[in-house]
């Protein structure tokens, strides 16, 4: 699966904001280095405000970083990366098929051709027969399947996933996690997955990169050495619990530190 090269390599990425009210400069991301090998599934895990979603947007080109550099391995044609957004990211005025085809339309493909190429991805994510439905007619889980299909359809090397299951109920979320692994396996993508859920990160990933907040920085990079394919029952194994416990301690430790010195960050 892995060809050995890096799909993504970030060096010294920093993000500053100027607070409109106070005029002060805030550091959202401090000096993040990150390497993602081709074909790997890497999660960025951290509390809200750690800049993990911001980092993803920088990679995607939606936000410019204030310093640092990110390299994405070039692909033959099309975009290197495609984003799977959080909730409510489908156009309500387009059918499922048109939504899934939208990324291709953005890349300059004609509408008819885009629809033709989008169709198999609808099937891949398990939405066959829902092509003509509008988003409001879909459940939250189905909407996220369509969201995923849109990103898959542009055939990018990297998928950037921004807490895609955060708004789903617990059961649907587990189901979608297993589905994602199935699709990842079938589509052979590199995935950079952002989440604040420890079990989600551990279950899905080859590596979990733990971030801390204020300012956002990487505090640990943990290899998840659980065999694949991973059925959902992996979550009930002692090995899994060890990983969860270890990451939980890291995050809790950061939290305690921040509480002890509330002004340290500013």
């Amino acid at each position, binding site marked *: 699966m892995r060809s050995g090269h890096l799909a993504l390599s970030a060096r010294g990425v920093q993000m500053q904001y100027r607070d409109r009210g106070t005029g002060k400069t805030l550091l959202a991301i401090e000096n993040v280095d990150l390497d993602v090998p081709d074909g790997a599934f890497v999660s960025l895990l951290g509390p809200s405000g750690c800049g993990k979603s911001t980092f993803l947007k920088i990679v*995607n*080109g*939606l936000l410019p970083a204030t310093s640092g550099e990110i390299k994405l391995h070039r692909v033959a044609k099309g*975009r290197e990366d*495609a*984003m799977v*957004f959080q909730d*409510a*990211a489908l*156009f*309500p*005025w*387009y059918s499922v098929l048109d939504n899934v085809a*939208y*990324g291709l*339309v*953005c*890349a300059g493909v004609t509408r008819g051709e885009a629809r033709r190429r989008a169709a198999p991805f609808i099937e891949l994510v398990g939405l066959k027969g829902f092509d003509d439905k*509008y*988003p*409001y007619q879909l459940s939250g889980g189905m909407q996220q399947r369509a969201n995923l299909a849109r990103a898959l359809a*542009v055939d990018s090397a990297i998928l950037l996933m921004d807490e895609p299951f955060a708004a789903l109920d617990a059961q649907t979320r587990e189901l979608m996690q297993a589905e994602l692994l199935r699709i990842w396996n079938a589509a052979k993508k590199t995935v950079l997955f952002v989440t604040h859920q420890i079990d989600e990160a551990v279950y899905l990933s080859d590596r979990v990169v733990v971030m801390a907040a204020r300012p956002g920085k990487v505090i640990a990079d943990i290899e998840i050495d659980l065999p694949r394919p991973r059925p959902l029952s992996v979550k009930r194994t002692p090995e899994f619990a060890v990983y969860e416990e270890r990451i939980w301690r890291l995050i809790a430790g950061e939290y305690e530190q921040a509480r002890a010195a509330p002004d340290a960050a500013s």
Partner: protein
Amino acid sequence: MIAAREAPAVQLLGRLRSRNERVFYGVIGFVGLTLAWEIAANSGLFRKSLLSTPSAIWKAGVTDIGAGTLWPHVATSLEEFAIGFIVSLAIAIPLGLAIGWFRRIDYLLNGLLAALNATPNVALIPLIILVAGIGFESKVIVVFLSTFFAVVVTTFTGVQSIARRHLEITRSFGGSRWLAFRTVALPSTTPYILSGVRIGAGRALVGVVSAEFISANQGLGFYIGFFGTFLDTARVMLGIVLFGIFGVVLGELLRVIEHRFDVWRPELHR
């Protein structure tokens, strides 16, 4: 069984009611009040010169249509409305879209347009008559202006309220600004445009009536005012009813168009 003993007519009524409650009660309300009006006026409950009676209005209508004296007025008003309204939409919608899409133009013009929109357009009728005379043109201009500001303002408000998240999607997949305009701005603004068209249509109708009241020698507004001075209540009411019918038909037409464009919206429509 009680149902079995009910008269067939009652059964039919019951079935009709359950099938479409809204229409059933609507028809009852319409027929009931019309009858009550006729009976009350004929039994001397109020003077006929105040409201006339449904039958007298009907008779006046049949007479004037037969004599060919009603249609020219209706045609004039319709024409004034149609030309002013359509030309106005053709300019106002693209302009509103452009204003909303370019942030700086929006900032520059929205205060001015909001002020013009807040001006009761009918206050400008004397000025328009001064400039364009008392004929057909002045009414078309009144209709045009009445529609124009309502549509421009609602349209650019619509563009402003596009969800930023939706624009981000286009950008994320590398789509151009122009693509974002076509695929995001246009569809998400359509409900706003249509509600602007609805408001504009109402105002344009007011504009037609008012301008024809104030100075005209043709048109349905003129017809109402003319027979008002002759104390012919039946014809005054006939004109009012025709305006009302026109308003209702126009409203229904817009509702059909709204439904056509709103298939993706889950909310129920009013």
